[in-house]
């Protein structure tokens, strides 16, 4: 086989982090507080539970079909025709997520930083990078992951620590003013970000220690949940009722902080690490879109697909959303439903049918 690339569990778990949080921590605080108000910091807890369910389903499927990705075993479960339709649909979904990430990236940079730079210029920079990384393969992506994620985490922790003095705990109370329902409702919004973890289906076959995958994945989901909750908590604690009206609360927070009067405006740091994290997320989704297409059409060498796919994603990123309001309404209204369908319902159906129809992958590689 042409891909003998292997992944260590540390690389794998560190990649999960930007996969969810890169775009999540930017948009989630404002869209969840819009629904749950000051209780929104609790919402990611329930989204995290959904995330664990998704990860568990994918893991179970992977144990039934070792060394195969979701696109590959889909036809094995449902038969050639239906299975391939589902698989194609999944690949389209990966492409649309890639396009959304790209759009989130260009929207954010255009709003907060480079207002006159054409989005296409930004997008070309990002896509050039991801084409390069995808070309080199998943191993290169994962090696960059370690450093980027550690650096990102460091900056994130600094931001949170610096905001402790300005957090007003009074903004958090009263708890459950409008009952528990809005909290659960708001939990649906970050859920698809956790659901994007279904893409681990492409990573699991390459892990060098597959026996630890399930525990590592669950730990990471818990860790990501904590980060999401912490982000919501700090932004609500500092800005109170204003969070739901801000587009990028975490970024506002970085702008607001000041360390002893001489270190102010930490936003460039956030921008820098965020760009790196988004690069990881986007490259990974670009990579799995390419892999998905290759597996769907049984193309031996996926390299010829990289640039055409990149072009399709760029075009999609422009065509999918009319403006940033459209993007946000997609993220807060459409995506929870669309995401649940793609990430939870379809894999769940696959898992159930694989048991019912007694379909199993052959372990010919072990």
């Amino acid at each position, binding site marked *: 086989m042409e891909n003998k690339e292997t992944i260590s569990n540390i690389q794998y778990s560190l990649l999960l982090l930007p996969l969810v949080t890169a775009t999540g921590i930017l948009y989630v605080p404002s869209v969840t507080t819009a629904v749950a108000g000051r209780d929104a910091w609790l919402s990611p807890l329930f989204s995290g539970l959904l995330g664990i369910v998704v990860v568990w389903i994918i893991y179970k499927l992977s144990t039934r079909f070792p060394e195969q990705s979701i696109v590959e075993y889909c036809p094995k479960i449902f038969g050639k025709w239906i299975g391939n339709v589902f698989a194609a649909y999944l690949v389209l979904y990966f492409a649309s997520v890639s396009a959304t990430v790209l759009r989130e990236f260009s929207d954010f940079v255009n*709003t*907060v*930083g*480079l*207002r*006159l*730079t*054409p989005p296409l*210029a930004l997008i070309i*920079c990002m896509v*050039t990078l991801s084409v390069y990384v995808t070309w080199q393969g998943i191993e290169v992506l994962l090696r960059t992951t370690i450093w980027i994620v550690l650096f990102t985490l460091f900056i994130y922790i600094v931001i949170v620590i610096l905001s402790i003095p300005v957090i007003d705990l*009074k*903004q958090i*109370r*009263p708890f459950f*003013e409008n009952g528990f329902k809005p909290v659960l409702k708001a939990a649906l919004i970050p859920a698809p970000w956790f659901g994007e973890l279904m893409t681990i289906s492409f990573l699991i076959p390459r892990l060098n220690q597959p026996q630890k995958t399930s525990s590592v994945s669950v730990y990471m989901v818990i860790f990501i949940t904590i980060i999401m909750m912490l982000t919501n908590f700090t932004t609500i604690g*500092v*800005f*109170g*009722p*204003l969070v739901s*009206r*801000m587009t990028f609360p975490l970024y*506002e927070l970085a*702008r*607001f902080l*000041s360390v002893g009067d001489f270190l*102010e*405006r930490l936003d460039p740091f956030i921008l820098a690490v965020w760009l790196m994290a988004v690069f990881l997320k986007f490259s990974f989704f670009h990579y799995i879109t390419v892999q998905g297409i290759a597996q769907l059409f049984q193309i031996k060498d996926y390299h010829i697909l990289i640039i055409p796919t990149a072009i399709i994603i760029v075009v999609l990123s422009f065509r999918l959303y009319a403006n940033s309001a459209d993007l946000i309404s997609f993220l807060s209204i459409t995506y929870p439903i669309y995401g649940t369908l793609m990430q939870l319902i379809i894999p769940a159906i696959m898992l159930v049918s694989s048991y019912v129809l007694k379909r199993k992958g052959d372990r010919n590689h072990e």
Partner: protein
Amino acid sequence: MIFLLSFGLVGCWDRVEVNDIAIVMATGVDLLPDHKLKVSAQYALPGSSGQKGGGASESKKAYFVDSSVGVDLRDATQQIQERLSRRNFVAHRRIFVIGEKLARQGIRPILDELSRNPESRLRTYVVITKGITASDLLQTSYPFEKIPMEALREIERSRVGLEVQLKDMLIALATEGQSPVLPAVGKVQLQGDTKASFRLIGGAVFKDDKLVGWLNDSSTRGILWLRNEVKRTVVTVKIPKVQGYISSDVVRANTKVSAKKENGAIVLYVKSMAEADVTENTTELDLMEPQNVKLVEDEISKRVNDRMQSTLDKIQHEYKSDVVGYGEIIHRTYPRDWRTMKSNWETGLFPKTKILISVSIKVRRVGMTGPSLDIPEKEIKRGAPQ
């Protein structure tokens, strides 16, 4: 490849050089009689805004002010921009000044731009002018600082009066049943200086987004006590039946507010605690004597209590505006009751709510001397005054 990519690093659409921007230090907005807005901006002049190089000559000002008229902030700013050789840059704006007239009409219409513009910061301080227009205030110079509005920022930060950032004001406006109180700035004649200057003169009380009245310096400090924002203050008291005064620094002040339901009505308890260090004693009392210290403690506590009570009376009954955020305390303690209360809180319920204040201030240190050193031994009053 690397060679090609390096072009991406240097080329930049939004490149702005330092010598292409006009740094706005403060913006002021006034309402004109024809309902248009007059926006004034105080710019820092490059090359002369450094802290050093004392003895600034009068001919070379470190700032200049320009203003223009428009239907909204952006419109007016654009009018100024068209006259400037450099691009307006508000990321370093320290102060946002709102004219008294505009404040009376309601400030909400002008606030949007301040948070929507990605350059503008939520840390900017907000003040209301009293007796003058915002554009006049920006023209006024200040003896210590080369850029006058820098002085205003330093004064606010020292927390002698109110310290209100844009964020705080927006939260107060966004919270139902709460109104902002902003520092008021007026023109004064500094003694020994021919030119007029400015200072903080108390607070401007809002109801929703409209200015409804003023608080004097003493009531403004009352607000600080009620909101638990006192950092350090000086309280001077007169002990009954004793000649002279005693001044003390009040530190470590802490005010706790709690809500309790009593016979179906919600009562608020305001408990203030602080420590006092006596710094001046012009009486004949020996402060080494515990009973004398007790007298001073009682008097200081009473003084602070009176100040809080009179401030509370003013905002509860005269202005009917909850600038201290006590509605939120009820909201937190009794969220269910608050649901029916919140729409009628400020006008209907807040003035009627019973608020009980108790102050306990302990004297910790009496300074370097017991009795004053200059008093003859026989005149020192060791015991309690008769």
